[in-house]
């Protein structure tokens, strides 16, 4: 009889089977074999068989490794220790086969041969090794130019969409920014000393292909300030059906420019009279809908940069948050001093004020936006709110009264 009767049921079906795949590693690796056996046991018991993680790592680093031990080590000795190694991915997850084979070889030598491509934060996750293999594995990785990603209360591995490498919508160089920030914050990534985790994700445009708005303490999203570029001939070609909507990626053969594009524009800032398409760009909110449906007719503007949004995280503790706008527009060119300095200022404010395990977004809610903006030296932009407050409970500081004495007015009359 099979060791893994329940898992075996996952070998069939059209989607790639991790069971089939892992059985290959199991054939040569006791850890992989016991992983499957213990997993099958979990399928039977409907419960995890991993103990609460312990603290393991490589010398000098406080992060990059997640310790893990089986709670049934006698039954499954191959996974008594089964730590993971987070390998910092390259920007945009581009690889050469040479590099990938190197990584595989290292992991075949020092671990279970099982991995995630990739982890949810972005790292390549090597799944399952023992404590004594950590240091040799790390040495081989660095020798080949690789390093560990983040874990714990530290800067986490930044990630980005592929941006200018292969996307016409990229408003700034996501891959370069991601690389530069990763380098800039190496120390903070490997030596946890923040109140909690800190994540950065870089998307090249409001399509947000790395979901940064939902899962990055700092979301950097590309945007343009000027006008959408229009190729009227191509608009005609879409209207005529020679060009397919969304580059051919939809079930719909032909675009009805009015019904599909201009009527669905959320700001109603477009007009199409059957001939010429016009856009009132001052009222466009960069939603990307029109551009996505007619990529050959419409292009993002040329005065480009990024919006910074801050504060998203998963629901623990206050409920999930999405990031909100803190800087509507920042030019985004190497060496990226402005954003680097801002991040450093944010870290300082957060480290000084944040409670243990308080994300920066939670701290902003707790202390209020004024405290944040003042501390990092930013003006509060009207774009930071979707709507101003409805309640009348607002504060006045001495500096407000001083400003009034000096002539501040709250509306121009």
């Amino acid at each position, binding site marked *: 009889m099979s060791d893994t009767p329940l898992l075996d049921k996952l070998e069939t079906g059209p989607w*790639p089977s991790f069971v089939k795949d892992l059985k290959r590693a199991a054939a040569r690796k006791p850890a992989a074999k016991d992983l499957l056996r213990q997993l099958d046991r979990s399928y039977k018991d409907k419960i995890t068989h991993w103990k609460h993680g312990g603290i393991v790592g490589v010398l000098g680093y406080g992060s990059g490794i997640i310790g893990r031990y089986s709670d049934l080590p006698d039954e499954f000795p191959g996974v008594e220790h089964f730590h993971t190694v987070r390998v910092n991915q390259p920007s945009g997850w581009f690889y050469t086969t*040479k590099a990938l084979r190197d990584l595989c070889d290292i992991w075949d030598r020092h671990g279970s041969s099982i991995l995630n491509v990739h982890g949810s934060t972005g790292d390549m996750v090597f799944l399952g090794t023992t404590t004594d293999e950590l240091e040799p594995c790390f040495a081989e990785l660095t020798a080949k130019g690789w*390093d560990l990603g983040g874990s714990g209360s530290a800067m986490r591995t930044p990630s980005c969409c592929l941006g200018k490498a292969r996307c016409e919508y990229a408003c700034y160089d996501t891959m370069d920014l991601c690389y530069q920030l990763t380098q800039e914050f*190496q120390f903070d990534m490997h030596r946890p000393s923040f109140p909690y985790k800190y994540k950065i994700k870089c998307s090249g445009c*409001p399509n947000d292909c790395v979901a940064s708005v939902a899962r990055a303490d700092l979301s950097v999203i590309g945007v343009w300030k000027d006008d959408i570029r229009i190729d009227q001939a191509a608009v005609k070609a879409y209207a005529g059906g020679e060009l397919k909507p969304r580059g051919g990626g*939809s079930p719909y053969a032909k675009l009805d420019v009015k019904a599909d594009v201009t009527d669905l524009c959320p700001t109603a800032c477009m007009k199409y009279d059957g001939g010429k398409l016009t856009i009132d760009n001052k009222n466009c909110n960069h939603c990307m809908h029109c551009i996505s449906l007619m990529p050959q007719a419409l292009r993002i503007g040329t005065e480009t940069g990024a919006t910074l949004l801050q504060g998203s995280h998963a*629901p623990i503790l206050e*409920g999930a948050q999405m990031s909100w706008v803190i800087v509507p527009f920042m030019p985004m060119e190497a060496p990226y001093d402005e954003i680097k300095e801002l991040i450093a200022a944010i870290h300082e404010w957060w480290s000084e004020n944040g409670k243990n395990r308080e994300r920066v977004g939670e701290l902003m809610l707790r202390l209020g936006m004024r405290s944040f903006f003042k501390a990092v030296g930013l003006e509060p932009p009207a774009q930071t709110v979707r709507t101003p407050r409805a309640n009348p409970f607002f504060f006045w500081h001495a500096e407000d009264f001083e400003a009034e004495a000096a002539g501040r007015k709250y509306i121009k009359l």
Partner: protein
Amino acid sequence: MAERVTDIGPPHFDQFLPPVIKDNYGKWKYHEILEPGVLMHVSESGAKIFSVRGGSARLVTTDFVKELCDIADKFCDGYMRFTSRNNVEFLLTDQSKIAGVKDACKKIGVPIGATGHSLSNIVHTQGWVHCHTPAIDASGIVKSVMDDLYEYFGSHKLPAQVRIALACCLNMCGAVHCSDIAILGIHRTPPKVAHEKLRHLCEIPTTISACPTGAIRPHPDKNLKSVVINEERCMYCGNCYTMCPALPVFDAQKGGVALLVGGKVSNSKTPPMFSKLAVPYLPNNPPRWPEVTQAIRKILTKYAEGANKWERVGEWVERIGWEKFFEVCEIPFTFQHIDDYRWAYDTYRTSMHFKF
């Protein structure tokens, strides 16, 4: 001993880019989706790059990665990448080689798709494969759901793109909270306090302050050096367990799956939205979780039938109204659906804008 190398960060991406990308970096003009899973990007220079996108289990072996490498070596001069949803992309300049890539993928069981109006890969987490807090497995459910909805991965049949994500506990490492459909592992019973272990393993003030609802108090018997849990206040988030291993929050019978729907992150037409609770509980039923796959299929099918062109799941639901969504999907409305957490008020219907 040689000097230890640290803090070098990842290799610079430059060395991994195919020449056509280096040459046309930042110059891409437009793209077409030639068929499901196959993209063509055209540069201002006229250069083209083709990308063939394939599905992956994400939980893979070095054997599998090497198989991918074989394909990339054969057809792509050794260049490839992975996507933000754990798909693999083969990058090539010679359009005639696309068929070869597809064939080779077929041989190793890699399905082609995930572009445009498809269902892409399911972003997911560790589950019973590696984590200490899951209510459910991750990889097994993903496999079951993707088997069931396979037809949507390699086609452009849906009204818009659909993104499913899975997280095996409320920590939500899959960041499921903004997904068209979110599969979420939930505990439904309070932690059981292991007093003996607690005194050795846990710091009591940290444990107490970990609880968002203030359900944890010091044990009245001071000698025990432990805590008690007010079960009425506990909503099984497991945060205390994260801080204190002596508070396991598992119950093999009661744990299970909740489905949340209607989230998105793109700004297309509508702003990013959270996923909202649709099905509060489905049983944890390995190895194939039939109730989960059926429920998701039902929701996806109703969406595909009911949505307007270009409408994401959440846009569809918001347009017809949640009460209609529940009716259409035959989901009874329960107390669990009604928010009673921090910002609950904003979810209440303070208008006559509802349907009977």
